Structure formats: C-alpha cells, structure tokens
C-alpha cells in the first residue's frame, strides 16, 4: 500500500446509505462489516479508496461502502482494478467477488496479478456455489456435491484457491471466515497493509443454497487458527502443506506473508519512467524519434 493521507475514521464512515439485499444470515454481511473495520483501522479517507468487483451476490459489496466503487463485468474485477491502480497509483485498490467470478471466468487473471505483484488486495467470498443464479456448481464446490446442475453429484475436484495463489507465488495469502469477525478484520487489514498483491479467501456461508456443513456451525467444527497451530507465515512450503487441507479443514489466518516483499509493478514502472525521463526529448522535439538521420 502506498500511503498518502491517514486520518481517524470510524467503521461507519465507510458504510454507504445503500442497504445490502443479501439473504438474511448471509456470510457476506460479516465480510462487509470486517472491511469497514479494517479500512477504519488503516485510516485512509474513502475518496482515496477504489473498490472493484465482478458479478455475483458478493460483488455487490463496493456499493455498500463509501469508497469509489465499480461493480464491473463477470470475472473482470482484477484487470479493471489493475487499470485503476496504474492510472492512479496513490489509490488504495481493493478487488472482491465470489468463487465463481474469481476462479472460473476470472481465474486466468490471478496468475498475472501475482507475477506483476500489483499492489491490490483481492478478497474472495468463497461459498462453493453460484448463489445469485440459484445454486449451480461453482469451481470450489466439493466433489459429489448435488446442485441444480449436478443432480447425481459433481464429478469434478474443486479448485483449491489457497494452493493456487501460493503456487503462483503470491506474497500474501490468508483465509478468514465469519465465525471470527475480529480475526477477519485483522486479516483484511494486514492484507491491505502488505505492499503487493494480497489474496484473502473468505469462507462465507450461503444460507440459501449452501449445505449444512458449510454454515457457521459446520465451519466452527472444522476451523483451526494458524497462529494457534504455531504456523510460521514466512514459511511458504509449510503454507502450501497446510493449504492442501482446503475443504476438509478451515485454517484461519495468514498462510504466507513474504518477509521480503519484492517491488510492486507500480514501483518498477516508476523506476523505468525515471530512468527513461533522463534521455527524454522535450515535447516539441518528440517527432525527432521517428526521423531517420
């Protein structure tokens, strides 16, 4: 995060007048509450924050904040967030969406965000189902899951979002859930403060189409805190080892935080611009570049 102004804010300062229309009990209510708290703790004014999403229930989230919001195209939150960050590097840029938006139609964008190390925080509300379109299989649905598109059970293995981000070399990978809102807010805050691409997977229950085991009670039964396990977030291989349990266990906290964050794409662009500007021609002589001598 490239900090500019920091002031004292309350969570309510990030809450817009628009009221969420999610189903009562939806996990996304807790996620947006945790985002308000994380942003207040960071203290950047709402007009210095851009929040981009794709399409889906969870992608409504930017509208519920007072930040600049862009409820964009299905699966395209990350490239749009990148464009915003490149155009105005001083903005704090968040991207969010669901598992379908992020790992299916938008899945191809994640590796490029990671290899460029864009200074963007990507929050995925992973409910293992397409809720908005009434309960079809999503890329993170468990094998065997019955749904409106898999009456006899899914035949596919789910995508493992944590392993996916770690394998591509993301500098910050974490997981949170509404069973611990304080922990979720702290994790999101830490992700935003990380200088580079930060990925937070949030197990956010779908109360309408989710299975019983995916609701709060079920999540509590399989949750384990990473700090309580003694996990060292600087150990990438240990993080990958733990990430393999995605779906069977719910590990909460930071899986991996690069102890020596590499420069962000924005840093490299700035460096390149400074280097090239030394030999730059004045504006009135710019056409000389195209004239053969």
């Amino acid at each position, binding site marked *: 995060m490239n900090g500019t102004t920091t002031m004292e804010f309350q969570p309510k300062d990030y809450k817009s007048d628009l009221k969420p229309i999610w189903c009562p009990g939806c996990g996304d209510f807790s996620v947006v509450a945790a985002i308000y*708290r994380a942003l207040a703790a960071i203290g950047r004014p709402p007009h210095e924050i851009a929040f981009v999403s794709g399409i889906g229930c969870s992608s409504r989230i930017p509208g519920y904040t007072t930040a600049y919001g862009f409820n964009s195209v299905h699966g395209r939150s990350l490239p749009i967030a990148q464009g915003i960050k490149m155009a105005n590097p001083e903005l704090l840029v968040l991207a969010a969406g669901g598992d379908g938006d992020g790992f299916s139609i938008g899945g191809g964008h994640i590796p490029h965000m990671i290899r460029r190390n864009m200074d963007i925080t990507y929050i995925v509300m992973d409910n293992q189902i397409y809720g908005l379109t009434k309960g079809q299989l999503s890329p993170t649905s468990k094998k065997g899951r019955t749904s409106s598109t898999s009456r006899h059970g899914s035949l596919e293995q789910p995508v493992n979002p944590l392993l996916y981000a770690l394998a591509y070399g993301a500098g910050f990978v974490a997981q949170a859930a509404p069973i611990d809102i304080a922990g979720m807010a702290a994790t999101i805050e830490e992700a935003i403060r990380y200088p580079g691409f930060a990925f937070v997977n949030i197990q956010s229950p779908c109360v309408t189409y989710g299975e019983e085991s995916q609701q709060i009670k079920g999540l509590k039964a399989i949750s384990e805190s990473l700090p309580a396990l003694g996990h060292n977030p600087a150990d990438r291989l240990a993080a990958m080892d733990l990430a393999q349990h995605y779906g069977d266990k719910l590990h909460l906290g930071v899986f991996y935080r690069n102890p020596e964050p590499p420069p962000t794409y924005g840093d490299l662009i700035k460096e390149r611009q400074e280097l090239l500007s030394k030999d730059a021609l004045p504006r009135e002589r710019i056409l000389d570049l195209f004239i053969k001598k």
Partner: protein
Amino acid sequence: MPTQGFDFAKLTLMDALDLAVLVEAEAKERYEEFAYQMEQHRTPEAARFFRYMVENETKHGEQLAQRRQELFGSTKAVVNGTMLFDVEAPDYDAARAFMTPRAAMAAALESEKKAYAFFSSAIPAIKDPQVRALFAELRDEELEHQDLVHAELAKLPEEALVSDEDFVDPPNSPD
C-alpha cells in the same frame, strides 16, 4: 472475547463509558439492519420486534452518552468502533428469511446473554473500582433486557404446529 485492542485492566471510567456507548450503537445498528432485512422479505412482525429493539438500544445508548458527557465533557475518546465486535449485537447469522416473531425474539435473547457473558468475563480483569462497578451495572442491565424479551415472548400465542418455514422452498431444489 469479542473485542480486540482492549486491556481491561487499563480501562479508565471514560474509556469504559465510551465502550458501553459503542456497544449499544453497534447493537442498534445491527437491529436496524435486521429490521430492514425482514421488511424486505415481507416479515413485518419480526421487523416490528427488531424496531422495538432499536428503540431500546437507542434509549440505553443515549443514557450512557449523557452520563459520559456529564462526567467528561467533550474529552476526546480513546476507544473506537474498530475495537469491538458483536458484544451485544446479534450475530449476522442469527437472521433468517421469513423469521417468526418467536425466532426474532430468540435471536435477541441470545445476544443479551452474550452481552451478559461479555461483561461478566471482563470484570475479574478490571483494576479500577469505578470501572468494575460500571461493568457490574451493565451486566445487570443485560439481565433486565433479557426480562424485557421474555415479557415480549410471553405475549405471543402458542407456536403453531406448522411453521412458516414449512412453506419455504427447500434449498438446493433441483427443479
């Protein structure tokens, strides 16, 4: 403990009052959200009960804020809204589409019990006797709030054998 960033041993009376005001404000906000959700889902009885809880939390919050003002004037608060989570506010997960008034009251009762547990568990760690007395008072008020909800529950007719839930489409219906 549903808070972060607090050391109860170091809380001053002003911090404790500010914290109490924030606790009430958070609960009020949550009940407002629940009332709106129920109105959206055409469940006016549950919405009406949640609005009643909004009034209660507002009244209690105003009383605490007035007390704070009388004792400490406009001295800048040290505690803020990022430091507490769901002390008296019902869990987001407690709301459900098509809630009956009884279910709405049960959710409120759970949150009052949660608040009672919060203040009870904090008291042993508090060093300042004035703060301890305030927390004991707040804890006891949570019992009164529980009585209020019980009184509302008693006004309800007997639960029907068939609930509204029986008429809701089951999740994951393949058709």
